[in-house]
């Protein structure tokens, strides 16, 4: 968030982000998000005040500990149970709509 990355969110950018996030947004939502995103990103920019040049990032929440276990064969979930929540299933497979659309 240095000066050069300071950014103004506009409708075009909101639409681009929505497309990356695979979200269809209504026109109202798009218009609502523009000022809200600017407010929120403006607020979080106070982190710029903090000098973090020699500070490592803290990705883990507790003491680093590596856990291993025996590589034993266990029973797995029966396929029909696994598929019981699938919107559409056939012959032990999840069915999805066509990926390629003829233009």
């Amino acid at each position: 968030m240095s000066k050069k990355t300071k950014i103004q969110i506009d409708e075009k950018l909101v639409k681009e982000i929505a497309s990356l996030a695979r979200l269809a947004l209504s026109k109202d939502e798009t218009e609502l998000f523009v000022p809200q995103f600017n407010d929120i990103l403006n607020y979080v920019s106070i982190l710029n005040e903090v000098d973090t040049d020699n500070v490592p990032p803290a990705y883990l929440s507790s003491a680093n500990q590596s856990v291993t276990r025996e590589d034993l064969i266990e029973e797995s979930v029966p396929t029909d149970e696994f598929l019981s929540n699938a919107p559409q299933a056939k012959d032990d497979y999840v069915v999805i709509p066509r990926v390629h659309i003829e233009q």
Partner: protein
Amino acid sequence: MDLHELSLQQAQELLRSRKISSEELTRAYLDRVQRLDPQIKSYVTVSGELALEQAREADQRIRTGEGSTPLTGIPYSAKDSLSTRGINTTCSSKILANYKPFYDSTAIRKLKLTNSVLLGKNNMDEFGMGSSTENSGFFTTRNPWNFDYVPGGSSGGSAAAVAAGLAAFSLGEDTGGSVRMPAGFCGVTGLKTTYGRVSRYGLIPLVSSFDTIGPMARSAYDVSLVLEAIAGHDPKDSTSRIEPVQIYSETLKKSENLRGLRVGIPKEYFVEGLDSEVDASLRTAIKQIESLGAEAVEVSLPHTQYAIPVYYLILFAEASSNLAKYDGIRFGLSERDGDGLLDVYLKTRETGFGAETKRRIMLGTFALSAGYYDAYYLKAQKVRTLIRQDFQKAFETCDALITPVAPTTAFRIGEKITNPLDMYLSDVHVVAVNLAGIPALSVPCGLSNGLPIGMQIMGPHLSEETLLRIGHMYQSQTDWHMKHPSCWND
């Protein structure tokens, strides 16, 4: 005394001496839920038939004397982000409205092993995103103390259920205050556990590096009994802690005072914006803790003001990737009337997610996108290190830290929902704990205009025993945790 008024210990004594059965106790709770919950709206799903079945199994276990536990036969509820086999698990999201997991989360499985009785699943902000339950995809839970006010969030349904006597205890989940804040707003005792102390297996994730499951109940002692049952290492969660679980309730029973303990009062939590009555209640509570033998000293957590921006940036990023799996393909809602695969993604997510969830997915997608990762996510993770170091330094001289749970008591329904940033700021006292992965207990310590005030007691990693001891000793000298809203007697 009505059955819902019994503490866990009292209920267990009556169950063991066979003066009551678990089936009677369960029916009493289900009756109350049926009568009162249409107004309070703390449950998304009530699994009454299954509960009665579980109660009869518990009665059988007690009758045959095959080792009942402190929770055997006790009716409880769980936040709807904990997977329950064969029972809807919705995270209060339309996208999971009909989702029935085929397995139990570890915490639920462990409670099943004690033969406690699951009454149903509690309302929450969608996927845990919110501080009021107003972001539930279904309805807003009411604060039992005043139905015009929010119960807090995101585990607002759990807190309201315990406060209104609609469950003997509840399992909540805390990502950034979601157990402590509603516990404070509803006047119940809630524990945010050390990251990894309770297995996250089967907990539907919001922020994988912050999420923790914790008990919500009517006293620190009741919380300790639940924690003993659900804590411990789990091979199915590689981040779960391997250290043995203490018998917290035994320590509490033996505890007589707080001599030798030093509690820190972080000055950054007592600043402008703190409600004067909340401030006064906390000052009184600290004096009572001192009178039990603890020494109180002022300390500083200098990076406190950065906790909210750090928390939300990391949350946006992790939540946006965690929620990518809701795509209408393998489970959950699927909108298939469009043209091809991309349309399924777009329409499912448009229909299934609420406004706040969309907002956070979008902000996370943006913060993680090429060119912005270093400026937002990486920067936040670095400041997180500094916040964690603040706590480490404070715990070099203190056993615990005491602060308010929130700067004010519960706010009105509708008051903050139109301004997301304003809602985020209500989490100012609770999020730093999740950044550090430490435990914290929320304990009722006062009332202001008929709404509860909460005290937060934070400690170093795995200090649950100390926190519960402070809470328990405080509750042995005060009766704030015994005060109930008027609907308690309905």
